[in-house]
């Protein structure tokens, strides 16, 4: 089995490139704390009223921490407007009541698939005040494109005037 010298060199180069890409991936995943959704909680969608998703919304967990429960269904999110103070540590808990949906916050690293019976969870921070669209990014039927909500990141000064939950 003869392999040309040039080609051997090329194969070595491939191995080095692939090896270093994998290493970079591992290092950056730890360094920047990139976390992907991982199994967290499963329940029967018929019993959704008995879970925290019966009353979706923002919960202040004390200090700088917030929990946000969002329920997706054809074709809207509940709540459809979420207000978060700038810099807070926000954990989203999101699920779907019916079909496959998506949960994507533009200009931020929040990108989840939503499946009925599974809770998708992700923790993040919002540094820049403004209004961002939350989009359903998985096809969920004929009204899919209308499934939009707003995320409002408030600067500390104007969040004082709002009542906090």
């Amino acid at each position: 089995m003869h392999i040309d010298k040039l080609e051997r060199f090329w194969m070595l180069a491939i191995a080095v490139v692939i090896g270093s890409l994998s290493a970079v991936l591992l290092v950056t995943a730890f360094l920047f704390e990139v976390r992907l959704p991982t199994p967290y909680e499963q329940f029967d969608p018929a019993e959704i009223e008995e879970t925290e998703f019966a009353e979706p919304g923002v919960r202040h967990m004390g200090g700088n921490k917030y929990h946000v429960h969002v329920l997706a269904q054809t074709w809207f999110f509940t709540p459809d407007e979420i207000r978060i103070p700038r810099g807070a540590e926000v954990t989203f808990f999101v699920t779907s009541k019916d079909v496959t949906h998506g949960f994507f916050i533009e200009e931020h690293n929040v990108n989840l698939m939503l499946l009925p019976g599974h809770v998708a969870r992700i923790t993040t921070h919002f540094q820049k005040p403004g209004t961002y669209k939350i989009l359903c990014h998985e096809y969920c039927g004929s009204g899919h494109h209308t499934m939009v909500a707003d995320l409002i990141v408030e600067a500390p000064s104007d969040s004082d005037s709002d009542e906090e939950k």
Partner: protein
Amino acid sequence: MQRAKTIDRPVLARLTFPPLSMLKEERWLIGSHILVALLALFPGILMGPFQAFSRSPGFVAMFPEWEIPVFSFYYQALTVHGVMNALFFTVLFIVGHAYFVMQRSLQRPLWKPGLAWLAFVVMIAGLLATAYAIMIEGRSSVLYTFYTPLTAQPWFYLGLTLLIVGTWMAATNLFMTYAGWKRDNPGKRCPLAVFGVMSNFLMWCFATTSVALLMFSMLIPASFGWIEKTDPQLARILFWFFGHPLVYFWLFPAYISWYTMLPAQAGGRLFSQLLGRVAFLMLAIFSLPVGVHHLLADPGISQVAKFVHTVLTFVVIVPSLLTAFNIGAALERAGRQHGATRRLDWLWKQDWKNPVVTAQIGGLFMFIFGGFSGMIHASFTLNIALHNTSWVPAHFHMTLASAVMLTYIGMLYWFVPLLRGRVLWSRTAALAQVATWVGGMILFGHGMGAAGVGGVIRRTDLANAPYFGDETALAFQKASVWLNTTAIGGGLLLISVILLYTNLVGTLFFSRKPLTENQVPISTEGDTRLPLWLENWWMWLGVMIILAAMAWGPLLVDEEILFNAPITGPTGLPMR
């Protein structure tokens, strides 16, 4: 006993193929596959540019009354585009191509020509059933990924199941043809093209078991109303177990063409036979343990599995990089034959006047963008920024719709003339077609990719989305310039499609000049220096099964199989 049987077999089994026409044995069978594939492609491919137009704010502002013709419901057009292009066209073309390669390279007829026709009829029945469900019945706009609990009409799933069953029958025929050749030629190595077909169909048969399981356990019973609930996460796992091998099923005929025909067509010679086989095997085997990179944002799959599949995805880049070297070296030789003398001038001193070569080199060129864009969004850390944005269709329009499709087009430019025994109707039109395709796809791919980075989501009827004309939706407004360049790309591609079909119809009906130049180099020999165990297909199947079990088994442990999501129709209403 065995001996007595083999004595007269070679006499029966050998065929001599004319280089400039097709035997009766191949013309009707292969011609039918290729032509029906092109018919299935036609409605699907037309929907592509129309969707690009409808997603462009500039286009919509210019033509506010315009609608996608025939299928004005965006998601119906999108379902037609995905299902016809990516499933029916590709599969019919690949099966026809496999028959051609097998018969010509082994110089023997198929094991059972009757079975090949039966498989064809089964696939056509599948095509009609699915096309009826999507285009006429109309309540099957579930896109080509058909994620449950969104449920289509039964004809949709029955048609796709028939398509898969047809491929299994075709695979049986191919395997038995190979086995017959092997029996008659003990100790011989099969030609590289046959090695590619065998790798491809072995991978396909193993991978399709999961989608068959999905069809029979959930989708068909759900659409008939025999079961009322399905398990969406398990369904996605079963779909993507099959989904990534599907991608390579498309790619294989292109690889076979690049490795076994392009070097001779371009005037060069393949650099390494051995590494060609290694690339084919790696592609087939490592297509299986990587599918979770399509599911990196799913809630029911552990981060560990996601990481493992990402790293294995990098392994599957190896055969493509080997190919880049091998085919690159073959093209360098070809370039030197065409007068290249400096270090890199072989890159442009190619036979650009030959559309067969030009289309394939165009495909190879686009595969560079396809490969790198795929590495980016298959990465554990980067996917979160790109998952389900228009970056994803940008990627597979560089791979499937460019690398694969341009190579198929290059093949069609010799296939159809060979079928008809006449030269290609217009070389100029063919070259213009390739140029508009490459240019259109670059604009389209870049536009979709850049829009995806800006946060524009994929497969969404943007024109009717509330933020489409909304000046306060800043992120979308910023990205929408790229949706306009995408539409310009779509316009070029529409021209390209018209040129392609006109030329092929012209070749079939109006071309008068008989074929004089052999554009179809077929190798009937395998390199005798190669080890025979490379062709131990049972062993490779075993390796596939073990790797797949190791990569996918842990996912099922994570899964509390629920089967409790009520099914829903695409209109958003419960099915019944």
